[in-house]
């Protein structure tokens, strides 16, 4: 069957590899991907493990549906204790690596210790070798992958690797595969770098037997048809996530000049349509018909002629609105640089935007920035700062430490200007007009984040029957209110919780968030997941059992965070969300701030729905019911 993939525990310090079965009982409880990773992280780390020390583990996985007929089954998940936040480090990555890992016989890798010399893992049809990577150290992401294909004389190997930023332990370094697929958030590339691990290469010829092949083919075809019939998918096929910017900026949902505005005036240059001039086609992850990835060649500037992939909506913010730049060429160049060197686009843009606000306010000066004029809108300065962060050069060395540590070094009250939660910076979205989205970023297990719990469809003010269909008893019972106004505080705690479970299920199954209820209410969720699992693997899990598995894993992420010192105070918005109203945008977005009391009320409600106590700690009854009261264990 498709679920024969093993768990490999690889100790880079003593160069040992032990291979274990994954019991079906564990799969049923945690599925796979991020779900089972949460279980492994909790069990394979001791409290307080140094994120950049040998005792941290880096877990790499494919989802339960990885490589199978599931509309998009190429997503790979990586988990560790985050060197950026100290809490759960977790990031999902597209491309083709996860299926190849599974074809090679493995579903989960737990990598611990630290290699004495730069190394890479060669995973080939059930065998795992730790190989010398001295010749790869210093190479960028693209060079590394090309060199490994040459070395292994196989065009079809799939590689996860770090670039120079990961080697230099930039605290928001990424793990990359291909040109643009990034495990972007929480600094997992630095964890990999700290282990002296340059790359993981997979190649497999194993077969994944489908439980009901004819029915699975037919079901996948019908799901694809349904996905492609949504407006969102059709738009994504042409413009990728960049299409979001036009609408959100027009309304006033786009964080601009760090946090000084919520709308980039004269920002048409960043709109997705401008990609037409540079695009050479689209790319997709394994099995996906949405193909949201742009493939482009830079036309102007220092990087003219360079081939690159992306950018996403996040980069339009990171190197556009947040830093006050209106030139798409800057976005394209910086997107290329962060992918090449292996850094998180959002954290990089946020650090520069923060420094720019400090600079404009006179809190830092040319003496701090090594003479770089960090005024908003200085395109050259932004590109230069990206390079300096990746290389940890001068002021870039300070920014490479991430928001809280950088503010610690700069001092002078600079912390107040960070737009971060739990030590991770936010997307360039401005959630002051949207309480549900604000609650989502405040409570996300990995820090300020838009793809862990965001009820994206809330901003459409959908008809109530649509909200009822999505959020009521689907599949978990809910008797509270549902309100179809995005400025309301009512019923939003449940929406956030529902999305949390949905995204956890998606990440545990190894499918894509753009194929589920995120930006459209008409995409698959628990009912369809249950059918996909059954047809592909033969495993009968009801929608409610998948919901429960997601809840179990999300609760373990919470438990991990609490073990590392998380309190209710960490589930909090940056102060300016409460005190400074939005200055721009349409009437629905202008003059808005978050009401502190109502936000606290939403937080109470959210904890209550989770069966967490008022401090945000899961109750013993919940742990008992989910069967995780006895964690940690060493079952695996």
């Amino acid at each position, binding site marked *: 069957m*498709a679920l024969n993939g093993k768990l490999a525990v690889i100790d880079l310090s003593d160069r040992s590899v032990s291979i274990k079965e994954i019991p079906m009982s564990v799969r049923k409880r945690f599925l796979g991907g991020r779900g089972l990773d949460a279980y492994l992280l909790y069990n394979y780390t001791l409290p307080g493990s140094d994120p950049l020390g040998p005792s941290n583990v880096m877990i790499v996985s494919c989802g339960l549906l990885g*490589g*199978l*007929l599931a509309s998009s089954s190429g997503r790979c998940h990586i988990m560790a204790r985050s060197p950026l936040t100290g809490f759960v480090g977790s990031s999902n990555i597209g491309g*083709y690596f996860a*299926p190849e890992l599974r*074809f090679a016989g493995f579903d989960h890798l737990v990598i611990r210790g630290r290699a004495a010399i730069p190394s890479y893992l060669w995973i080939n049809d059930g065998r795992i070798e730790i190989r010398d990577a001295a010749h790869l150290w210093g190479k960028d992401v693209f060079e590394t992958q*090309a060199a490994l*294909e*040459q070395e292994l*004389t*196989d*065009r*079809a190997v799939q590689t996860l690797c770090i670039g120079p930023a990961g080697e230099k332990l930039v605290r928001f370094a990424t793990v990359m595969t291909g040109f643009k697929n990034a495990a972007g958030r929480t600094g997992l590339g630095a964890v990999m770098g700290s282990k002296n691990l340059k790359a993981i290469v997979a190649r497999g*010829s*194993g*077969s*994944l*037997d*489908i439980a009901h*092949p004819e029915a*699975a*083919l037919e079901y*996948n*075809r019908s799901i*694809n048809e349904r996905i*492609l019939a949504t407006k969102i998918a059709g738009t994504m096929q042409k413009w990728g996530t960049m299409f979001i910017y036009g609408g959100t900026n027009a309304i006033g949902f786009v964080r601009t000049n760090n946090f000084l505005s919520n709308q980039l005036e004269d920002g048409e240059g960043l709109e997705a349509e401008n990609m037409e001039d540079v695009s*050479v*086609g*689209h*790319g*997709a*992850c*394994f*099995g*996906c*018909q949405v*193909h949201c*990835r742009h*493939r482009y*060649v830079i036309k102007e500037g220092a990087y003219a002629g360079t*081939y690159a992939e992306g950018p996403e909506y996040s980069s339009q913010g990171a190197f556009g609105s947040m830093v006050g730049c209106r030139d798409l060429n800057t976005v394209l160049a910086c997107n290329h640089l962060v992918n090449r060197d292996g850094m998180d686009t959002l954290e990089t843009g946020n650090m520069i935007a923060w420094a720019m606000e400090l600079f404009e306010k006179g809190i830092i000066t040319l003496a701090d920035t090594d003479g770089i004029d960090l005024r908003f809108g200085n395109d050259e300065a932004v590109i230069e700062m990206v390079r300096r962060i990746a290389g940890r050069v001068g002021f870039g060395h300070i920014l490479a430490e991430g928001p809280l540590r950088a503010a610690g070094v700069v001092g002078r009250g600079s912390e107040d200007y960070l737009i971060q939660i739990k030590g991770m910076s936010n997307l360039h979205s401005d959630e002051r007009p949207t309480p549900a989205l604000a609650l989502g970023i405040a409570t996300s297990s990995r820090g300020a984040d838009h793809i862990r719990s965001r009820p994206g469809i809330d901003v459409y003010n959908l008809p109530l029957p649509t909200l009822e269909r999505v959020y009521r008893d689907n599949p978990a019972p809910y008797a509270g209110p549902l309100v179809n106004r995005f400025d309301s505080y009512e019923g939003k705690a449940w929406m956030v919780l529902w999305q949390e479970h949905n995204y956890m299920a998606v990440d545990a199954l190894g499918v894509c968030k753009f194929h589920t209820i995120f930006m459209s209410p008409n995409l698959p969720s628990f009912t369809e997941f249950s059918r996909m699992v059954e047809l592909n693997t033969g495993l009968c899990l009801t929608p409610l059992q998948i919901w429960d598995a997601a809840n179990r894993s999300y609760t373990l992420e919470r438990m991990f965070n609490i073990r590392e010192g998380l309190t209710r105070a960490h589930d909090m918005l940056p102060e300016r969300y409460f005190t400074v109203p939005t200055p721009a945008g349409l009437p629905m977005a202008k003059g808005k701030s978050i009401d502190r009391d109502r936000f606290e009320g939403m937080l109470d409600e959210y904890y209550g729905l989770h069966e967490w106590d008022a401090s945000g700690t899961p109750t013993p009854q919940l742990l008992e019911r989910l069967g995780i009261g006895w964690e940690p264990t060493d079952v695996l």
Partner: protein
Amino acid sequence: MTEVLRIDAKSCTGCRLCEIVCSVKKTGSVNSARSRIRVVRLGGSSGYLPVVHRRDLAVIMAGDIGPGRATMFEEYRRTGLAQCDFCGGDPACAKACQAHALRYERCAQEEVG
């Protein structure tokens, strides 16, 4: 007249769904090596190339590692035609490909060569 798979490599997104469905239909399992169609990543702006014939695939896979095979790709991309009758006139790959990179159509025997 004869039936052919017309391959428009420029539209190929490299998703490999054609490989997946072909192997599942033939063998009941996902295994690219057992798929009649294989998608080769050419790299950079050259994109992807769906390849049907195993003989060509072997040449392309080997050739792509080193220099000197550009003509082979170009030829393939230019003609973009392949014959595969394993699906009995209802090719799973073409049906699955929503990027319009694969179309099953009739053409003159001379065009196939």
